[in-house]
């Protein structure tokens, strides 16, 4: 294939001195070696998996501070509040922050059987499932991963109404009490 036919036809007995015919076959092995070496280099440097992105829309800041914030009537049983704490601990409750007691704040984890089940269970028990709201309250001890994990749970459990809010003072107090105790 990589040979070139160098034999010229005819002229057999004309007695001329000819150079010895050499095959024009080229050894391709080093070229193939080089080719594959470069392929390996490009394979390793190529980034195939581009990172994904997740949408996060925050509410607009109220410019006029005197204007009372818009309030919507949400029944407590129609919501679940998730408080993210330190060391990957996560708590949830279904009360308003004023009626919250340490007993009502349950602890769970970020696993499939933990917070996901809690959200789904709360939604099934909600009075109006179309208005079921998840309130996400990351404390200052939470990490960015915790936040992304919870937002991810929102898309897994298909909870469309959710909001990221700062925890209230009452909730922080109770959270501190609970997080002081070791995890059960």
């Amino acid at each position, binding site marked *: *294939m*990589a040979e070139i036919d160098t034999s010229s036809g005819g002229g057999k007995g004309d007695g001329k001195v000819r150079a010895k015919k050499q095959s024009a*076959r080229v*050894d*391709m*092995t080093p*070229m*193939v070696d080089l*080719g*594959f070496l*470069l*392929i390996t280099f*490009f*394979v390793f*440097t*190529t*980034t195939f*998996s*581009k*990172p*994904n*992105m*997740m*949408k*996060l*829309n*925050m*509410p*607009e*800041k109220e410019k006029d501070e005197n204007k009372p914030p818009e309030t919507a009537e949400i029944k407590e049983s129609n919501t679940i509040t998730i408080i*993210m704490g330190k060391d990957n601990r996560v708590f949830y409750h279904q009360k308003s922050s004023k009626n919250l007691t340490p007993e009502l704040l349950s602890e769970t984890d970020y696993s*499939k059987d933990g917070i996901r089940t809690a959200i789904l269970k709360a939604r099934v028990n909600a009075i109006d499932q179309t208005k079921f709201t998840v309130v996400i309250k*990351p*404390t*200052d*001890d*939470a*990490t*960015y*991963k*915790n*936040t*992304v*994990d919870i*937002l*991810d749970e929102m*898309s*897994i459990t298909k909870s469309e109404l959710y909001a990221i809010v*700062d925890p209230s003072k009452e909730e922080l107090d109770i959270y501190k009490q609970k997080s002081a105790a070791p995890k059960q």
Partner: protein
Amino acid sequence: MPAVKPKRKSPVMDMTAMCDVAFLLLSFFIMTTQFKGQESVTIDTPSSISQTKIPETGVATISIDPKGKYYFGIADAKQRGELLQRMAQKYGVSVTTTDMKSFEKLSDFGISIAGLKQYLNLPPEDQINVVMAGIPNDSTKSELGDWVSTYLKEVNPSAKLAIRGDASTNYPAVKQVLNELGKRDINKFQLITGVENAPN
């Protein structure tokens, strides 16, 4: 009767076909490879089941490292010069065309605008060794917020803003960004995450 001998074949193999394949693959990889610019910080993002891919152009990225330092970068190299010029004007810093050329090579940076000029004048081999202090982002003076709003409102209004945080970044560092940008009426964010399979 002599035994029938199989015809001896020379062990030389024809490599041409293999060579063809090798170079075909090589040209494919050369054409598809996109070299990433030198990133000033390594960030290990958390993963999510989101399927949306990040666009290649028109993205501004805020990176937050585990210590809560902020870095900023825009994907389109051509718009970097304009952005620097506008920011320099706002902060009363003079920039030369050499500075702008040097800035266009930066995929991201984590230096206040006062220190940026000095950094840009360093030769590239020294730039790598500089430990960046992060872009200032306090509630009183947020340079990061100015960079973002200058880019999104003046240079490229259709651009998206992405936040790339490390998994171990503390939440207050993220909250600070959201607050500062909220003050500037930027409320739509994209969180950059790794890939994870959706649960069944």
